[in-house]
């Protein structure tokens, strides 16, 4: 092999050629004065996918014609007159067109740097030598380094931006909080200074003071809410909520300001909208924020449309206005805290710029999503909220410190017959509705006596409940009495039906006593529908009751 590569010229020591040929991690090839290849090392064979036998004896410019078109043959002429040339990757990208070794770099050829120099025998130049290096690895690590530097720079820019936004926000806060105070103080002074105040002036002063104080309370509430959410301390009082009713209540609140601006608020509320799980006060805050925003940014004579309807597995609430719209530049930032499209002191609209940030935080706490759409400035805007309706949808980021069980998906109770015993009507209804939603076939009883009557009928109809859920604290015969009476019955009369006790939150001993009395398990008040559904499902499974 080595002798073959030597070609005509046998003056090169064969051992040295073999060493270069086999052991180097670089491409190495030599030509004679006519640029015919005389040496083609192993690296070249591997990376060019051409064997030495194929290449040796042929002119290099015939094997790689693009050397001429890319002007590289000049370097070979220079080498023949004794010059050494550096071929940098940065200026040439590659020397020979070789297949890439790292396809991730996205090049069609292996990136290389090289050196071309004379092959000298004493004072005579007898040919050229080329050394090639694959710089793929170097480029990959350079790219990683540059990315790292970019990431750091971006993080710095983002941090500076956040700091600027906070500064702007602080100046907005001081300005906005002072505004209503000026009105309150101004009118208070007038009332104090005047010996006698006409009734109509007094009434007007009090209205102004009341309105401004209320505005300030709202701002401070918003600020506190944002702080609570930021520190994870906002707690939602979850229950089933009729979103249509909540929306109507919110519309009532904004109606006066809309009427004052001659803005028509139109409602499109689908009566088939199922209830959602949420905190009614917070949901009303969300809707009120969207509505008052719409009214604020809509010119007199405009229209605000509110719609609520089920869409697939979610309940969708949309607020569309014909107002000033949102420019595409600002659209991605509308829900960010401390952001207003115009933070300059000359802006037309007051407010802290917290409303939409609160909307997003609250909606996400409810496991929902919110998005804003606008065709641009002067084109109006639409805010759409999707809240989960399917069974017990996951409740987003309920703060861990809230003390309640971590909320998760409620189990299905489909196919399960459940008897609920509870004397207190509201709790009974809540339990009934929530268990029905889980798929259970629910029968309710308001007393121990009624429960036993239900069991007698059920036994006769051979349709005994699979599980009994009973409150412990009831007037007259309580939950303990009930379970003792049930356990005294024959199996066919319902004596073995698994039972879950709902214990009061005062007496911690209730749980143990309930188990002693004959309940299989117990859950504590306040009523947490998911925790109860989990217990009911567990009791049913333990008794091999059918759950689909």
């Amino acid at each position, binding site marked *: 092999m080595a002798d073959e590569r030597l070609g005509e010229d046998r003056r090169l020591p064969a051992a040295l050629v073999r060493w270069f040929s086999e052991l180097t991690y670089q491409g190495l090839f030599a030509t004679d004065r006519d640029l015919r290849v005389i040496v083609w090392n192993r690296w070249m064979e591997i990376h060019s996918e051409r064997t030495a036998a194929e290449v040796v004896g042929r002119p290099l410019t015939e094997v790689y014609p693009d050397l001429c078109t890319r002007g590289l043959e000049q370097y070979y002429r220079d080498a023949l007159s004794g010059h050494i*040339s550096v071929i940098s990757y*940065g*200026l040439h990208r590659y020397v020979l067109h070789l297949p890439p070794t790292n396809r991730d770099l996205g090049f069609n050829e292996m990136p290389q*740097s090289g050196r071309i120099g004379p092959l000298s025998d004493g004072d005579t130049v007898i040919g050229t030598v080329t050394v090639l290096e694959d710089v793929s690895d170097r480029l990959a690590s*350079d790219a990683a*380094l540059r990315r790292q530097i970019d990431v750091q720079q971006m993080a710095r820019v983002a941090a500076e931006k956040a700091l600027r936004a906070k500064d702007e926000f602080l100046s907005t806060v001081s300005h906005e909080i002072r505004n209503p105070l000026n009105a309150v103080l101004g009118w208070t002074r007038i009332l104090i200074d005047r010996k006698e105040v006409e009734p109509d002036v007094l009434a007007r002063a009090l209205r102004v003071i009341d309105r401004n104080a209320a505005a300030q309370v709202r701002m401070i509430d918003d600020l506190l809410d944002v702080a609570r959410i930021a520190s994870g301390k906002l707690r939602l009082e979850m229950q089933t909520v009729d979103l249509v009713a909540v929306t109507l209540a919110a519309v009532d609140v904004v109606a006066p300001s809309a009427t004052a601006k001659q803005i028509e608020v139109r409602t499109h509320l689908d009566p088939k909208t199922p209830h959602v799980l949420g905190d009614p006060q917070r949901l009303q805050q969300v809707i009120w924020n969207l509505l008052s925003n719409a009214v604020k940014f809509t010119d007199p004579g405009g229209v605000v449309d509110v719609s609520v309807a089920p869409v697939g597995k979610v309940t969708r609430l949309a607020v569309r206005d014909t107002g000033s719209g949102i420019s595409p530049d600002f659209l991605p930032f509308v829900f960010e805290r401390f952001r207003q499209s115009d933070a300059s002191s000359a802006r037309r609209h007051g407010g802290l710029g917290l409303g939409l940030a609160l909307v997003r935080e609250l909606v996400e706490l409810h496991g929902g999503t919110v998005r804003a759409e606008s065709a641009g400035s002067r084109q109006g805007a639409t805010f759409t909220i999707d809240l989960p309706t399917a069974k017990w949808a996951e409740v987003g980021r309920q703060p861990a410190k809230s003390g309640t069980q971590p909320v998760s998906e409620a189990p299905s109770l489909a196919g399960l017959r459940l008897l609920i015993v509870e004397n207190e009507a509201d709790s009974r209804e809540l339990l009934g509705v929530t268990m029905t939603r889980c798929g259970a076939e629910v029968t309710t009883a308001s007393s121990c006596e009624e429960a036993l009557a239900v069991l007698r009928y059920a036994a006769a109809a051979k349709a005994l409940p699979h599980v009994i859920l009973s409150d412990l604290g009831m007037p007259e015969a309580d939950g303990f009495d009930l379970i003792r009476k049930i356990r005294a019955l024959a199996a066919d009369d319902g004596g073995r039906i698994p039972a879950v006790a709902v214990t009061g939150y005062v007496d911690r001993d209730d749980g143990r006593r309930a188990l002693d009395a004959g309940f299989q398990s117990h859950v504590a008040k306040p009523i947490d529908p998911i925790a109860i559904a989990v217990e009911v499902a567990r009791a049913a499974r333990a008794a091999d009751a059918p759950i689909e």
Partner: protein
Amino acid sequence: MELTAVQQDALVEVINIGFGRAAASLSKLTGQRVQLEVPSITMCPVDELSDRLRPVIQGDVASIHQIFSGSVVGDALLVIDRQSAAILKELLTNEPALPLEIDASAREVLTEIGNILLNACLGTFGNLLKVQVSFSVPHLGLETLEGVVSSITVDREGLRYALIVHAAFRLKNSSLTGYLIIVLSVASIERLIRAIEQWERDQR
């Protein structure tokens, strides 16, 4: 030994020929107009080299160093301050440079630029002297000016002179100055000057 005004003019003329070639190669390589000019040439003993350069080069430098041998032996260097080196690389490749210590690609590009300049200049000298010289592989150093001077290898014990060629790169409305330093023994430098004087006479 000082260069006379006539000798200086002749040297500038000769080197401009070489620089013209180098500028043409760089323009072709980078696809943009690169100009190279020689505002001035001075000569001094190597011992005084640092003192001569210190006022014009601040801080650490990048140097591209090639040794040539044959019937004339010597050192040839392109010395450029670090900041200018990084800017030059960016201008020529349109890519931002990382610090030179960690940017092997930038070092390589600078090595090639130095190589082109040194080859062009020394090639012209070689033609003039009708001698063939061979070159070592160019080496890029990142060091102090003193470090560069102490790396000069030719005839360490003898009296050596350095030709300092101011090389002004002009591209994309920017101008950067590097220094081409050719160190020769006294005998070689006298031969070079005589050859240039002869060339000057032949031109008339």
